[in-house]
């Protein structure tokens, strides 16, 4: 991947900066250009909004067959997380034993290495989650 594709997402990936619709007050993460509730009324009214980084596990899985960039890291836990501001997202849960993880568990964001473009390529960082 060429770095611009990663670089432009840095605010969201590092700091969980999403969007808030100033018409209805709903928060979106990852950022959405248009509020699906207010639609045209939201045009130009979606402002940056930083999530606190805390949320609750809605569901989770343990990946045993990873995609190429994650080979050698398995098994790892991926979760569907409902952030406290409302939006759901997909993120890895780290530093936590498989049998500790439960639906409803509280988690908070941490900063980790997500993947790299091989030994010579750029390193991509972003959010993962740990037990709160």
């Amino acid at each position: 991947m060429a770095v611009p594709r990663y670089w432009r997402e840095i605010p969201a990936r590092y700091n969980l900066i999403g969007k808030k619709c100033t018409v209805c007050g709903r928060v979106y993460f990852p950022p959405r250009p248009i509020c699906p509730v207010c639609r045209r009324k939201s045009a130009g009214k979606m402002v940056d909004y930083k999530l606190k980084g805390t949320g609750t596990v809605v569901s989770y899985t343990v990946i045993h067959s990873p995609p190429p960039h994650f080979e050698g890291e398995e098994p790892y836990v991926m979760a569907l997380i409902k952030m406290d501001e409302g939006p759901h997202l997909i993120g890895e849960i780290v530093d936590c034993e498989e049998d500790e993880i439960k639906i409803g568990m509280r988690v908070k964001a941490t900063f980790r290495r997500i993947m790299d473009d091989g030994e010579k390529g750029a390193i991509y960082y972003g959010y993962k989650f740990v037990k709160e």
Partner: protein
Amino acid sequence: MREVAVIGVGMTKFGEIWDKSFRDLVAEAGMKAIMDAGIEGKDIDAMYIGGMSSGGFVEQEHVAPLAIEVAGLEEFHIPATRVEGACASGGIAVRHGYMAVASGMHDIVIVGGAEKMTDVAGTEATNVLASAADREWEAFFGMTFPGLYALMARYHMHKYGTTPEQLASVAVKNHYNGSMNPNAQYKRRITVDDVLASPMVADPLHLLDCSPITDGAAAIVLAPVDIAKEYTDKIVRFRASAQASDTISLFNRSRFDALPVTIHAGERAFKQAGLTPKDIDLVEVHDCFTIAEIMAIEDLGFFKKGEGGKATEEGLTALDGELPVNTSGGLKSKGHPVGATGVAQVIEITLQLRGEAGERQVKDARIGMTHNVGGSGGTAVVNILEAI
């Protein structure tokens, strides 16, 4: 709108077809469908081909003219179009063919679907398939396709008490059905214990909860019912062809215990056909994972939400059950060459409605349904077919 009939079907064997290329598969399925319909190349007015990622799997895009070329149809210069909707690519191609004929734009249309998935390594195939999910916000973080369905599986299990055994019973049933399908990738009958003992792919989904990586192609020929009568006595017509969309991402869905996209496509199809779930004799659903079949039979209205697992375990969806589901073996056992799947589902229903399904024939089958899903539920196509 004109009534549309399926007048010819053809498919390759599904499986790891090492000795055949993407283009070999396309040519074989297309030729079989044309022969089955009893038409000639010059009769064809348009072609649609569904494929998820020929670019990702064989580094070849622009496959519609490729299909025309391998079929030797270039002298007619007919419109040829490739459509893409991840694993629903075949279903969407069918629907486009249906619309072209129903609208009166074209008379005889050939619809194909193909995927050649074993020309890349397994992990690379996993990566290509993950592009049916949200690449930047799901796959980027290490999420896989089985992983997304595993999230739904665990959620369903948590909410409704669906068990690993109930998930496994989907695979057991579909392998049993597939054992009677000469075109199926896996003809081995398996047990619940086999499924539970197979390696974990994405907890709680085991290897045998997942559809395989498959090469294959399928094709059908469509014509207005009036014209169909010139070619065949066993007319199978469309009662409905519906499609719906939702978010590509799983996390932005309104619910996680169902595929809203299936609910909407299903409701539209029943409305168009003027039918209810009770009228359906058999259905081919999109069982890319065992949990997907359980959710599908609930979301299409055949069973109450949360009871799909129990219904499967009790045999209600078996070949001799009250609603045979995936008589072909489904994606699980027949195989899942993603772009071909939606077309192959129509082939199975057509064979069943014609009474040509051999050992796995459902008695007195008159109305059948197909259900094809793209991604983790961003796209769904539901067709209802009827023997007349």
